């Protein structure tokens, strides 16, 4: 040990081999500072060429097998039932079934977009510390206090499609707080940061609403089973 001397010095010439203690929430660039590198040509370029080829081949095969839909000419006097938006908006259209247009068509999408835009400017998202790896009792209480009235609201409007994933994900989040939670589950779940929980909730809700809109809605926006009634 005696041949090494710990010195606190920022001068690279005086102390050629330096160590740095970096906290978890440090900018990603610091953590990636000294890494093995490869030449972009050919290592990256070859991968890009292969990627382009795979994309073209997969799309070409899909285009040979499946034809793009084309219905009769547009007729403003003949409304199809149901009239569906493109699939990526069917989550919104499904929301429109539960809430008034100002909420489902304007407020919620606007909130979602603003929420996504501001993500990197919030400390909670920048830290990658698991929810249970820091003092958590207060945070859990606050989350519970938010989830409860939201759930009541969802029950009042009968939005089961949002209520179920909300409760499911909150239960998973709260599971490590239960004393009888199995050790393996606790280890895994307690490491998930709060930001990931929120995003997972958002993605789950958006996907479920979209899938319901695509496959489970028929004439008059009634519930249909795709294997029994087909897809509208």
């Amino acid at each position, binding site marked *: 040990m005696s041949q090494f001397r710990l010195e606190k010095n920022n001068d690279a010439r005086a102390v050629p081999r330096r160590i740095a*203690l*970096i*906290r*978890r929430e440090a*900018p*990603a*660039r*610091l*953590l*990636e500072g000294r*890494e*093995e*590198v*490869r*030449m*972009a*040509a050919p*290592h*990256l*370029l070859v*991968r890009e060429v292969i*990627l*382009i080829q795979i*994309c*073209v081949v997969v*799309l*070409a095969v*899909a*285009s040979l097998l*499946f*034809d*793009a*839909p*084309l*219905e*009769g*000419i*547009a*007729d*403003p006097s*003949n409304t*199809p039932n149901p*009239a569906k*938006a*493109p699939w*990526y*908006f069917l989550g919104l*259209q499904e929301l429109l079934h539960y809430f008034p247009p*100002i909420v489902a*068509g304007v407020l919620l999408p606007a909130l979602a*977009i603003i929420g*996504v835009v501001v*993500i*990197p400017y919030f400390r909670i*998202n*920048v830290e*990658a510390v698991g929810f249970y790896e820091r003092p958590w009792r207060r945070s859990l209480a606050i989350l519970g206090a938010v989830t409860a009235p939201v759930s009541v609201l969802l029950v009042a409007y009968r939005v089961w499609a949002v209520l179920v994933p909300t409760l499911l994900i909150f239960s998973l989040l709260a599971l490590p707080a239960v004393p009888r939670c199995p050790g393996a589950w606790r280890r895994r779940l307690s*490491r998930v940061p709060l930001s*990931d929980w929120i*995003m997972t909730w958002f993605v789950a809700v958006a996907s479920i609403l979209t899938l319901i809109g695509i496959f489970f809605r028929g004439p008059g926006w009634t519930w249909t089973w795709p294997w029994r009634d087909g897809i509208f």
Partner: protein
Amino acid sequence: MDVLRALTENRLWRSVVRHGVRGTNRNRVMLVMENIFLHLHSAKVRRRSLEISSTYYLGGISLTLFAILTITGLMLMLYYHPSVPQAYDDMKELQFVVSNGVFLRNMHRWAAHAMVLAVFFHMLRVFYHKAYRPPREFNWVVGVVLLLLTLLLSYTGYLLPWDQLAFWGVSVGTNMVKAMPVLGPAFRFLLLGGNIVGENALLRFYVLHCVFLPLALVLGVAVHLWRVRKDGGIAGSSGLRRADAGKIP
């Protein structure tokens, strides 16, 4: 090898490509740096960022799909008139008259759907890898704008075939715009060029789809890729790995 040398070591070739073809590191660097199409790359990349699990190549897939959409879209423009009812007749023409017309339209359609998915998954990947952390905050915002542009591109294209699916899909969507307080009806009027989805709406969506939005997207992608370089290359999962985090790197 002699043929290769004869091809690449003459004045004509060297006036275009200034570096040699021998596999030296100098040539490899120059191949990237001296080429306008490749110069957005750095000469060297981190080994770990080449791994599939770092990015799943979702940004690359999105960009590839956009290129396919641009090429197939330009070809479709050759056969398309944005007017009623000619637009729908052109779809039938693609189907029955134009060689490989159906294939062309399929390719454009499926690539568009795939691009919406790819861009969305790209966003999720960046989120779960915490790749938006400083100094990459602004690039995340640019990415969100690109996602919205992708949705708008797909949506404006949805009307162009002028079939029932297109007409009513767009009617439903633009009725949602009407719900916006104060500005809603005016904005819808501006978008459709009238109060109903008609000939003016078709022309507006066509111009948005073929000119305005693609230009905006290309500009946005340029800023996005530029910022990726300026902020230190792509951020894979490495910032997140627990074995490294909180320890000496």
